[in-house]
């Protein structure tokens, strides 16, 4: 059973691959019915599928393909001219074949699809135009003889058709294989004989075996022809399956013969995940390297470390690209189905349309290739239905009777662009606006202020349809808005350009991969967010008074434009605990034609981030596209720019400049121990000296051994500090940095910071003042002096003494 399943899997994979190419080939064939090579290729597909399916006992499929083969065989013998009507039947049969294959994939059986009408049609074609040996609808009983019958036919044909090169090739290969095989056999026997004579002495003591077992052992030893005996039998084993497949593409595009290996997608996904982890680790390494560099400036080992870090970083990036490439598929896989679609559509709509494909080799991530198909179908259907005019209209306009739809793909930076052009009637902005007004999609005012570009995007609004009447192809008012959502799901954007009576051009810009993106990291208060760099147009530093308010909205002037602004803190409900700066940064986000300025407190930098899902529990949070893990192990949320732009419309702006400062917690001091002071010094001795000096006052003392610890204690909020004594030279975080950090918080604005240090330089004092220290005590000091400075700064009531 398992073996059968395995064979079945192989059969399905192979068949689907073959059928995928079939559509394109058939349409091409219709244009050029004389192309024997194409015809042979198509015939071979039918033949291969028939052979394999009869072996697997899929009677219905065998029945169908057998008759297809008959028709195609006639055609390639020149006994049948392929008219569009015949093509219709053949295409119908190909569709049936696909349906059957899908049924087999789902149910492992080919029951439930009626092929008889199509078979009758196929029969008629063979019967009506060629010899009269019409086989009356063969019951599936005749399976076994059919295979036998056909194989000799192919071989018999050879002498008559010398130009039929692929067949010659097949026969030639067959012959050569046989010759070689016998040669090899002879050689091998000779070798064995020789080997036994020469080498019998050493192997014998180990084990004395029968000859079949020794055979493989000894083969590799004589070096001259090691490859031949291995490779020949493998090719030989299934010539029927491999040869037609390998030979057909080899003929047309010699470059396409590449050595490939099939890999389970799951394995690639796993590999991609691992690479993601590696990228995170790399980011972390870079961060650590920066820290180390800062701390051990000028040390010799730094250079070595730097080298290693940059090599690791380089290799990781290369590795990531390499793995990404393994997941890449040519977009031709999607494009393949369009020639057929255009053909069907043009017949259905009575229009004449040509499809020009370009850039089929452009590669995209597998997951994107899978998602991009449906949107493209919609767009192309739309172009056929609404874009390209009827032939008589085209002639009246002086255009060629046949319309052209161009479909091309190319790389542009980190993105793939898929461009769909048609030379149809173009989009009429006035008509679009009127339509939207009628349907209540936009208001009169919006319509007036709309640019042409904005008007084009109206076709993506839900409920919009430009077709005057609903046709079976389009016009149901669904579709284009779905296209937009689908493309945006892929982090892509759509760009439309159109000119009346010249045509419309749509560009889909899609990122190369979904898993790893470049992001701009921004900070707001104490939080960080990542914004996909693809949506960032620019960043600007502004001062607060450059922000104006119009109708309750913040706006700013950016060159000659007015840009509406929104504070990231208002969108993500960030609590404002830090004192806001005089300056802010505006990240200008662009999505298609709309723009938005996002106010942030700081710009952290650009980083490569790995997108992780927030999981089921937290999915669907508006404005958050996912999360990533940063170099320091923390989690940073990724901004969903599309959603953010929507949210920005409903967010009320809070004034940037003045945040209501939390009322200072000034609890009445009733005893000396109500006063709390933090001592920050890395030296235990110094801390003890300070403690000894202040203890007589009876106040509460808390100690910290460096700036980071002090900051953590402060943030924890377990104590209400009245003052802090801070040493300057400390590991992890020095006194200046600590003071600067503390002063960022509104509620510590008035907390007295007293420097206690042995640094006596004037510049040191200046730095102290700059960072917000109000007193500067130099070591050594007397206990009384320290105590009096502290008392003065905390308004210590003398009665407690």
């Amino acid at each position: 059973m398992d073996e059968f399943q395995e064979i079945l899997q192989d059969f399905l994979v192979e068949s689907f691959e073959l059928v995928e190419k079939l559509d394109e080939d058939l349409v091409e064939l219709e244009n050029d019915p004389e192309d024997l090579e194409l015809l042979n290729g198509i015939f071979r597909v039918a033949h291969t599928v028939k052979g394999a399916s009869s072996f697997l006992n899929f009677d219905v499929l065998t029945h169908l393909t057998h008759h297809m083969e008959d028709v195609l065989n006639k055609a390639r013998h020149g006994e049948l001219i392929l008219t569009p009507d015949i093509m219709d039947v053949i295409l119908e049969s190909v569709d049936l074949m696909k349906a059957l294959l899908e049924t087999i994939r789902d149910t492992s059986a080919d029951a439930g699809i009626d092929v008889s009408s199509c078979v009758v049609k196929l029969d008629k074609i063979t019967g009506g135009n060629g010899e009269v040996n019409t086989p009356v609808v063969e019951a599936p009983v005749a399976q076994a003889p059919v295979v036998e019958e056909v194989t000799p036919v192919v071989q018999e044909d050879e002498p008559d058709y010398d130009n039929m090169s692929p067949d010659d090739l097949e026969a030639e290969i067959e012959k050569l294989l046989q010759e070689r095989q016998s040669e090899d056999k002879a050689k091998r026997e000779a070798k064995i004989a020789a080997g036994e004579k020469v080498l019998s002495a050493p192997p014998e003591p180990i084990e004395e075996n029968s000859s079949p077992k020794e055979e493989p052992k000894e083969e590799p030893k004589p070096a001259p022809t090691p490859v031949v005996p291995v490779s020949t039998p493998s090719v030989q084993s299934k010539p029927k399956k491999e040869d037609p497949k390998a030979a057909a593409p080899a003929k047309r595009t010699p470059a396409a013969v590449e050595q490939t290996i099939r890999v389970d997608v799951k394995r690639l996904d796993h590999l991609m995940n691992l690479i993601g982890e590696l990228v995170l680790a790399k980011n972390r390494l870079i961060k650590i390297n920066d820290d180390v560099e800062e701390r051990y400036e000028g040390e010799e080992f730094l250079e070595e470390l730097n080298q290693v870090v940059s090599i690791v970083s380089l290799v990781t990036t290369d590795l990531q690209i390499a793995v990404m490439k393994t997941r890449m598929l040519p977009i031709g896989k999607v494009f393949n189905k369009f020639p057929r679609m255009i053909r069907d559509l043009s017949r259905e709509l009575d229009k004449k349309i040509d499809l020009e494909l370009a850039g089929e080799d452009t590669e995209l991530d597998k997951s994107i290739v899978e998602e991009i198909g449906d949107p493209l179908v919609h767009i192309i259907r739309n172009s056929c239905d609404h874009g390209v005019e009827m032939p008589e209209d085209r002639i009246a306009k002086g255009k060629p009777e046949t319309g052209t739809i161009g479909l091309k793909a190319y790389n542009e930076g980190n993105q793939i662009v898929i461009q769909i052009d048609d030379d149809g009637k173009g989009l009429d902005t006035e008509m679009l606006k009127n339509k939207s007004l009628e349907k209540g999609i936009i208001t009169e005012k919006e319509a007036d202020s709309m640019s042409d570009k904005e008007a084009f995007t109206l076709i993506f609004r839900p409920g919009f349809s430009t077709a005057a009447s609903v046709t079976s192809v389009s016009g149901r008012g669904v579709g284009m808005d779905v296209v937009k959502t689908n493309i945006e799901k892929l982090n892509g954007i759509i760009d439309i350009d159109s000119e009346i009576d010249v045509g419309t051009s749509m560009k889909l810009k899609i990122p190369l991969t979904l898993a790893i993106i470049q992001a701009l990291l921004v900070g707001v208060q104490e939080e960080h967010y990542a914004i996909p760099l693809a949506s960032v147009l620019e960043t600007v530093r502004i001062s607060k008074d450059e922000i104006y308010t119009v109708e309750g909205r913040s706006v700013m002037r950016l060159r000659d434009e007015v840009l509406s602004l929104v504070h990231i803190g208002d969108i993500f409900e960030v609590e404002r605990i830090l004192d806001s700066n005089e300056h802010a940064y505006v990240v200008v986000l662009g999505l298609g034609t709309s723009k938005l300025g996002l106010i942030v407190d700081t710009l952290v930098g650009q980083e490569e981030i790995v997108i992780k899902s927030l999981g089921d529990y937290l999915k669907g949070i508006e404005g958050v596209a996912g999360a990533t893990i940063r170099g320091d192990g923390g989690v940073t949320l990724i901004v969903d720019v599309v959603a953010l732009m929507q949210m920005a419309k409903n967010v009320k702006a809070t004034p940037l400049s003045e945040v209501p400062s939390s009322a200072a917690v000034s609890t009445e001091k009733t005893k000396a121990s109500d006063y709390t002071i933090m001592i920050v010094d890395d030296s235990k001795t110094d801390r003890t000296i300070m403690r000894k000096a202040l203890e007589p006052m009876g106040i509460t003392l808390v100690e910290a051994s460096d700036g980071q610890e002090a900051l953590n204690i402060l943030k924890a909020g377990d104590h209400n500090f009245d003052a802090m004594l801070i040493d300057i030279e400390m590991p992890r975080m020095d006194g200046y940095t600590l003071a600067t950090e503390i002063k960022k918080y509104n509620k510590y604005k008035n907390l007295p910071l007293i420097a206690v240090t042995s640094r006596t330089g004037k510049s040191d004092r200046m730095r102290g003042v700059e960072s917000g220290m109000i007193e500067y005590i130099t070591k050594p000091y007397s206990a009384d002096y320290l105590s009096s400075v502290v008392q003065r700064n905390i308004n210590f009531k003398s009665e407690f003494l």
Partner: protein
Amino acid sequence: MSDKLKQIINQQSEQQNDDDSQLDNVVQLVGFIIGDEEYAIPILSIQEIIKPFTWTRVPQVPSYVLGVFNLRGAVIPLIDLRTKFGLQTKKQSDETRFIVMRHGDDVAGFVIDRLTMAIRIDKSDIGPAPDTVNGEDTIIEGVGKQEDKIITILKVNRLLERDF
């Protein structure tokens, strides 16, 4: 050969079933304190118990969802059970732990005040949730009776269910 093999395999699985049925009467739980109450969850639904560390706030969620944290490369939601149970928030102490629970593919971390112990409890000692707790919708699996106290056993799948 397969007949013999099958026999042996069958015998083995029967033995195992016997073992299982003996064990089936006893439930292993892990107990923890939130506020003044002791709660417990089945030990098998616990992926790990870790000491608290930093997390990232997530906007637009109820206050009991503290945010997300990084558990060896996976981004996992963190839920404060005190807030969820309507208790005052409390500062995290040395005894605070994150219990990472798993049910199927759902994983989340839960903040608890402190752990008590692993408990083996006989199935017969577990009573149904009190009637006052409304019907099917309850988060309580049952009430375990110990010698000197009772323990509320929680439904892990309900804890991991998104209810906003």
